[in-house]
């Protein structure tokens, strides 16, 4: 585990939301960001990219965020990587479900791109201190 949050993977199918997220985390936050348009793409690239934290959309065609999370967890080196769900499906019972699946935090859409880097940083800090 790095001392500082540097590498992020973001999985999002909507191109416009992808653009906003990229601007927020790469341009504003200065993180090293790998953006995937689908679950399979993430499963293929993430082990090599080896991020400090993974951000997942839930509603995606083909393979949804939950399935993607399960598959990523099956990869040993990603088994403990903190995962954040960023979704428009963020009603109380849905959040409970994501947390039960092992999510570190849920960020509801729409989100504020200017605040996103700090938010992600805090979450990472919390997860790291918990693991330590």
């Amino acid at each position: 585990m790095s001392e500082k949050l540097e590498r992020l993977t973001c999985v999002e199918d909507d191109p416009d939301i992808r653009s906003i997220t990229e601007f927020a985390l790469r341009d504003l936050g200065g993180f090293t960001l790998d953006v995937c348009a689908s679950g399979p793409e993430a499963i293929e690239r993430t082990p090599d990219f080896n991020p400090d934290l993974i951000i997942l959309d839930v509603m995606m065609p083909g393979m949804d965020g939950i399935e993607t999370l399960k598959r990523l967890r099956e990869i040993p080196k990603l088994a403990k990587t903190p995962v954040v769900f960023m979704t428009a499906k963020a009603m109380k019972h849905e959040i409970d479900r994501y947390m039960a699946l092992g999510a570190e935090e849920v960020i509801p859409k729409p989100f504020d791109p200017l605040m996103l880097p700090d938010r992600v940083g805090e979450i990472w800090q919390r997860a790291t201190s918990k693991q330590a």
Partner: protein
Amino acid sequence: MPDPTTLNSAEDATVLIVEDSPTQAEQLRWLLEDSGFTVLAARDGQEALEIARAKRPSVIVSDVMMPKMDGNELCLAVKSDPAIKSIGVILVTALSSPHDVFKGLEAGADNFLVKPYQEEQLISRIRYLLATETERNARQHETGIEIQLAGKRHLITSGRQQILDLLISTYEQAVGLNEQLEIRQRELAQSNKTLNALYDLAGGFNHCRTEEEVAGFAVKGALSIPSVRAAWLYLRDGDGYRLAGLAGNVELKDMDASSGNCACQRMLDGGELTGTEHIQQCECLKAASPGNPCGHVGIPLMVDGAGVGLLNLISDNPDGSFSADQRRMLASIGIQIGDALQRARFQEVLEEKVAERTRQLEAEIGTRRQAEDAADAAKERLLDAIQSINDGFALYDAADTLLVCNSGYRDMHFAIKDLVVPGVKFEDLVRAGLDCGDGPAVSPSEMQVDARVAQHRQADGTPTILNRGGRWLMLTERRTREGGIVAIETDIAELKKADIAKDEFLAKVSHELRTPLTPIHGALAIIKSGKVADQPEKLNDLVDMAIRNSARLMSIVNDLLDFTRISSGRFSLESGVIDLQSLLEQVVENKRIGPNPPTITLTVTPPAKGIKLEADSNRIQQVLDNLLSNAIKFTDCGGHIEVDVEKRKKALRVSVVDHGPGIPKEFQDRAFEAFSQADSSSTRRQGGVGLGLSICKSIMEAHGGTIGFASKEGEGTTFYFELPLGHRHRVSGKEQQCNEGARARHGKPASSGRRAALGA
């Protein structure tokens, strides 16, 4: 024996009567003097002996039983005295025992007369003695004969003549007695017949129910009394009388009021007719026929001491009269008829009262039955009505016992259906229901039972939602005026389903609205931060992004509005004559704009060219736009889509053909249902609330057209719609609302492109 009629006349004969009873002595004297004898009388034997010695009568007629000297002693004294022994002695004896006879014979009596005797017998004996006087006196005393009788010795010195006389006398006596017996027997038979007739009458009256029956029966019965030739009966009628019955051989003149009453009626009116009377001169009999006897017997008929009528009888005697004995017997008929009349009157009054009461009761029963029938019918109607409602209905009495319930109520207590019958206690139902798992807890407690019963008893009419055995119900309980409780249970499964669907719909809508909102909000936030102020190209991209997603948002909102209108029945068309071909060309052209558009080919078969039809052009565009958007969604970049228009028999068919993955079989049935998407999980390829096809279907139905598809997985899908030719569909008055919706949708720039696609 000499014939008594040829004997000497009695004129010179003197007869001595010896009799201690002065009355009988006087009767005898009267009889004998009447027959021409000279009569002497003595009260006892002593006196007689003195008179006999002094007056020398021809014959002594002596009683036997007398004081001082009885008849036998007198006879013995006479026969022992030579001076008077020639006097004939007749002993009048009761002949109660043979000793009397022998005593008389011993005493030397010349003749005997047995009591009771006929007067003629006495006269003939006296005359006989007088006639045979010489003969008797010439006779020598014969030697006595000793006779043993009943342990007593009698010495009879009487001559043969004496004994013969005694035998003759006895024989005559017997003959006389026999004659009397026969008369008595005849009389007895007559009396018997009379009594039988009276008895029959008395018995027969019991069956008479009216005065007329009594009268008729009385005269017929009277006729069966021996020697009654005719009978008729008058009953008092106002001031006069009416003839109520007539039987037998008599003619009667009708005695109406004008002719006045006849003798018998006058007597009854005057209170003179108290018993059975012989009425000598009867006007009605005389007036009727000269052959009638002139009199009759009148018998008063008394009721409560008042004469109410009379029974008149005539006998078969020429004068119509009856003997005193007969009249006595007949008197009883009057009493019988009187009683019968009283009974009949009472009976008539009673029957009338009974009939009246019966009529009243029948009327009451009729009214009551009508009321009962009406009540029954009303009850039936009510029960039918209760039975026919879908809701569960139950009525409990004040003691919480089930009185009535419908099948709906039983259905809602499915687990304990057999227990739900009138007579069951509410508490028992609750307990049984909870035991069967109707309640939330696995093992129900008495506390739960108590709570439910308490809620039930409160019965304040507040609706309660409850889940019984997995079934959602709304329960309302209310007190009736009688203190019972009416329970109404409504199955709210559909409401509950709708409730859940609404929640799901809201969740879906919320997500669908948030998805385009995210880039809008994000883009605007970045622009506002000024972080891209120096990058015009980036700034432009962000503005485009905001506009594009706003259009997407608008499209979703429009779909929602359309759907709401369709659901609430406020959906209508704004029809006009349209040129379908040019309309379709426009839609297709719009779809060709945008990044990486597919190749869309529009083919119109010759007969369909230039056809105009009546339709809502905006709505038809909406349908084709939707079908094309769906096709584009499932078509890879550079793929082909065909739009074909062809004229069918009575319709124009527009088909949109893609070569995408096709519609999964399991989804095909639900393709046109609202909120349905082939992939309802979070993995659908394209966003949307799943209303597009549902809206298209409603639009086509409003046009009187149809919509459908054919799809093969892996090969593609053909969606088509058909618009009828020459069909004028309904245009509602709510065009305004629809127009606004249509303007809102189509007033937007065409560049909204594929991003504005509706959900499949």
